[in-house]
C-alpha cells in the first residue's frame, strides 16, 4: 500500500475525507452495478467496495455498518432464491429437483406453488438478487466511510432546520430508550404490569411526558445559545424562496419519472429534470443567504476529494458506455445458461474505483497514550 502511494506521489496527511466525496464514489459504483447482471462483475463491485472500506474506515460506531449491510445483502439473496424455489414461474432447462406441487384454486391462476426447479430459473433469480446485493454493499460502504453527521452539516442553508431536526432526533432516541427502561422499572417497583396493553399505556404516558419536557428544555437551551438568529429578510423574498424550492423539487420528480418511463414525451425527461434542479438550487442558494450561521471546521474539498469522486464516476461511465454500445457480457444469458465472461471495459472501470484505497488520505486515529492515560 505504502509503495503504491509513493509511486503515485501522494503522501497525504491523515484527515477525514469530505463525506460528499465518499457518497459520490459509492453512488457511482452503485450506478455501475445497476446496469449489469453479470455475477462476476457484481462480485467485483462488492469486492472493490469492501477493499476500500477496510482500507479507509475509522473506528467510529457508524464505521461498523458495512458488515451489517453485507448481512442484509446475503439475506436479500437467500429470500429471493427461496421465493424462486417455492413460487417461481417455470423456466425450461435442467431440472435439479421437483418439489411437490400444491394445487391452487382457480382464482389463484398464474401462481404456482412447488413444482420442478430448474438450474436456469435459480441462476436468473440469483443474478438479479446479486445486483441488488451489490447496490446495498455500495450504500453500506458509503455509510461506513462517511460520518453521517458531517454529511448533514453540508446540507444547504435553506435545509438547515431539517438537518438540525435530524441531529436532535438522533441524539434523542437513545435517551428515550433509556427513559422507557427507567419507567418500566418504576412500574415493577409499584407492582404493576410492565407488559401487555395496560403496561404499554402505563409506560408510554410518562415517557411522552418526559420527552415533551426534554424538548422544551432543549428548545430553551437552543434559543439562549442563539439558534435562529437571522439576517433581516423581506416576507416577499421568503415566499419566492419557498416556491422556487417546491417547484424545483416537483420538476425534478417529474423529470426523473420521464427519464425512467420510456413511453413519455422527450420534453418530460432531461429538460424538465435540468430545469427543476436549477430552480431548486436557486431557491436553496437564496434561502441560504437568510441564515447568518457559519460552520466550525468545514471539510475542505481538495484534490483527494476530486479523485475519489472521479473514481466512482469512471466506474459508472465505463459500465454505462459498455451497455450503450451493446458490448457482450453485461447481461449473460441464463436460459440457456452460459458461463459468464469478463468484459474488458467494465472491469477496468471498476478497478479504477479501487483508487480511493490509496488516494484518499488515511484516517486519523485517536491518540491512544494521551487520551487513555490521564482521566
Amino acid at each position, binding site marked *: 500500500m505504502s509503495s503504491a502511494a509513493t509511486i503515485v506521489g501522494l503522501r497525504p496527511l491523515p484527515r477525514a475525507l469530505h463525506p460528499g466525496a465518499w457518497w459520490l464514489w459509492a453512488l457511482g459504483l452503485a450506478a455501475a452495478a445497476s446496469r449489469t447482471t453479470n455475477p462476476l462483475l457484481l462480485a467485483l463491485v462488492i469486492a472493490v467496495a469492501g477493499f476500500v472500506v477496510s482500507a479507509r474506515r475509522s473506528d467510529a460506531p457508524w464505521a461498523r455498518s458495512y458488515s451489517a449491510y453485507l448481512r442484509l445483502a446475503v439475506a436479500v439473496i437467500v429470500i429471493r432464491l427461496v421465493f424462486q424455489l417455492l413460487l417461481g414461474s417455470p423456466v425450461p432447462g435442467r431440472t435439479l429437483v421437483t418439489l411437490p406441487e400444491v394445487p391452487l384454486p382457480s382464482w389463484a391462476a398464474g401462481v404456482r406453488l412447488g413444482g420442478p426447479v430448474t438450474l436456469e430459473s435459480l441462476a436468473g433469480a440469483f443474478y438479479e438478487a446479486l445486483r441488488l446485493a451489490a447496490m446495498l454493499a455500495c450504500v453500506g460502504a458509503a455509510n461506513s466511510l462517511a460520518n453521517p*453527521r458531517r454529511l448533514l452539516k453540508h446540507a444547504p442553508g435553506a435545509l438547515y432546520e431539517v438537518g*438540525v431536526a435530524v*441531529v*436532535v432526533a*438522533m*441524539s434523542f432516541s*437513545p*435517551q428515550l430508550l433509556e427513559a422507557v427502561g*427507567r*419507567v418500566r*422499572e*418504576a412500574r*415493577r*417497583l*409499584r*407492582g*404493576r*404490569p410492565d407488559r401487555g396493553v395496560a403496561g404499554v399505556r*402505563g409506560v408510554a*404516558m*410518562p415517557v411522552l*411526558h418526559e420527552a415533551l419536557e*426534554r424538548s422544551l*428544555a*432543549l*428548545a*430553551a*437551551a*437552543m*434559543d*439562549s*445559545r*442563539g*439558534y*435562529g*438568529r437571522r439576517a433581516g429578510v423581506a416576507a416577499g423574498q421568503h415566499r419566492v424562496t419557498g416556491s422556487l424550492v417546491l417547484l424545483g423539487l416537483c420538476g425534478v420528480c417529474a423529470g426523473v419519472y420521464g427519464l425512467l418511463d420510456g413511453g413519455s414525451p422527450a420534453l418530460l425527461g432531461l429538460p424538465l429534470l435540468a430545469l427543476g434542479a436549477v430552480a431548486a438550487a436557486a431557491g436553496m442558494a437564496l434561502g441560504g443567504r437568510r441564515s*447568518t*450561521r*457559519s*460552520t*466550525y*471546521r*468545514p471539510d475542505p474539498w481538495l484534490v483527494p476529494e476530486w479523485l475519489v469522486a472521479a473514481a466512482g464516476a469512471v466506474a459508472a461511465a465505463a459500465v454505462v458506455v459498455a451497455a450503450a454500445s451493446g458490448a457482450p457480457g453485461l447481461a449473460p444469458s441464463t436460459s440457456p445458461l452460459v458461463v459468464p465472461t469478463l468484459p474488458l471495459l467494465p472491469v477496468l472501470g471498476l478497478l479504477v474505483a479501487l483508487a480511493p484505497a490509496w488516494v484518499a488520505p488515511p484516517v486519523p486515529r*485517536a491518540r491512544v497514550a*494521551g*487520551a487513555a492515560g*490521564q*482521566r
Partner: protein
Amino acid sequence: MIRFEDVSLTYAGAAEPVLDHVELHVPEGELVLVVGRTGSGKSTLLGCVNGLVPHFTGGTLTGRVSVAGRDTRLHPPRELADVVGVVPQDPMSGFVTDVVEDELAYGMECLGLPTDVMRRRVEEVLDLLGLADLRDRPLSTLSGGQRQRVAIGSVLTAHPRVLVLDEPTSALDPTAAEEVLAAIQRLVHDLGITVLLAEHRLERVVQYADRVVLVPGGGLPPVVGGPAAMMARSLVAPPVVELGRLAGWSPLPLSVRDARRAAPALRERLSLLSPPVAPAASPGAEVVARCERLSVRYGAHVALRDADLTVHRGEIVAVMGRNGAGKSTLLGAMVGLRTLAGGSVRVAGADPARLPGADLLRHVGLVPQQPGDLLYADTVEAECAQADRDTGATPGTAFGVLEGLVPDVDPQTHPRDLSEGQRLALALAVVLAGRPPLVLLDEPTRGLDYAAKRRLVAALRRLAEQGHGIVLATHDVELVAELAHRTVVVAEGEIVADGPTAEVVVGSPAFAPQVAKVLSPSPWLTVTQVAAALAEAG
C-alpha cells in the same frame, strides 16, 4: 452589568406575581449567589436575565431588565446569546450535538463567527476548563462533572460577559462539584466574567460568593448582602457557619479553612469531652436484607463485583461513591431489578427478583433518583388511593403517610406540579403504603432545599425507629453525617469501606462533613453533636 429596575413578573393564570417590584444591580466581575427555597422564584429571576422569561415561558413582565445595556424586552434570548451564557440545571437536556468539540462550537456557529475565530476559541476553552483530553468523546459517555464543564464551555465560547448557572453542583459527587466550582472561580478571576449562580447546597458555594441574594419568595423583595453578613442572619446556613455561630467566632467563617484557623480553642475544649458515641442500631436486631458476593455486569462492564452488605432492622445505611461507581446498581439489585451475574440477595427472607408484583411491595420499596417515575395518576389523591389498592393496605394509608411527611399538600394537585420535596414525599408515601421492612432511596436530597431536607431527615429517623431498615445512596455528606448509622463506600463496583459513619468518613477528604474537617482528628460529625456536648459540659 445586570440591572433589574422595578421588575414584577406574573405567569399567565397565576393569582400573584412571582417577582414583585424587584430592584437588583449586579456589577461587572462579581460572583453572585442566589439562594431561596424551592418555588421562591429563583429560577424565574435567573431566567429573566437572558429574556427566556418571559419570551419563552410566557407571563407578564413590568419594569426593565437590562444586561450590558441591552433591554430584554427588545432583545429575545437568541439576540442576547453573545452577552449572556445560560447553563441549564440538567446539562444533558441542553446539548444539541453529540461530541464535545462540536458542542463547544455550536453556539458560535449560530452567531456566525468566522472559522478561524471558532478554532481559536474552542482550543482556549478546552484548556481553560481542562477538557482537552475529552475533545473527541461522545457527550453520553462523560461523567456528571465533565458534562457540567462541557455545558459551561459550550456557552463560554461565545465570549459572554455574564454566566448564569442553575444549580450546577446539585447532581454531582463532592469531587466533581469541586472541579466545576474551581472552573467557575477561574472564569471570575481570570476573565472577569459576571456569574449569577443559584444553588441549594450552600456549604459548597458560599465561600466563593462575592455577594448573596436571598429570594424569600411570597412576593417579598430579595435581600442582598455580603456572604458573611447574610449568613449571620440567614435561617439556613452551611455547617461551618452554624459551628461559627455556636462558638461565637467573628468574623463568621465561610470556608473550612477559615474555620480551622479559628478553631484551636474549640478543639481544645472538645478534647476534654467524650467524643460522641456512634448511634448504632441495637446489636441484636433482626437482619432485614443480606447481599452475598453480589455481582452485576452490563456487557463487558462489571458494575458490581462480589459486594457483601447486611442491613438490620432500624438501621440507616448510607452508600457513597463517585458518580457511576455502582451505587444505583446495588440498590437496583436489592429490589430485583438487575440480573445477577453472581451471588444472592435475600430481603426479609425472599429473593426480590422472584417476588410477583404486589408481594414485592410488602418486602422492599425503592424511591428512584427521579421520584416522578413512580407516579402515574392525575392527582395526589388518586395516586395514594392506587397505592393502597396495589399493596392491599387499608384505604387512606398512603395519604396518611404523606400528611406525616409534608402536611400542606393539596390532594387535587397533579403530581408533576408538586415541588421537588413534595414529589419525593409522595413517592416515599406510595412506597411506604406496603409497609416494606426495607426502604431504599436513590439520591433523595437532589434538588431539595434545607427545609425539605430537614423534614426528610426527621421522617427517615422516625421510620428507622419504627423498625424499617433504610439504605440511601447519596452524595450529600452532611446528610450522611446527620443520619446514617453505617456508611458503605463503593468504588469501581467494589465495596471498599463498610463501618460506622464516623470511622468511615472522618479521614476521607471527599466524604468528610465540614464539621469533621474543622475538628479533625476528633470524630465530631455534626453541629448538633458539638452543641449537645458543650451544653452537657456547661
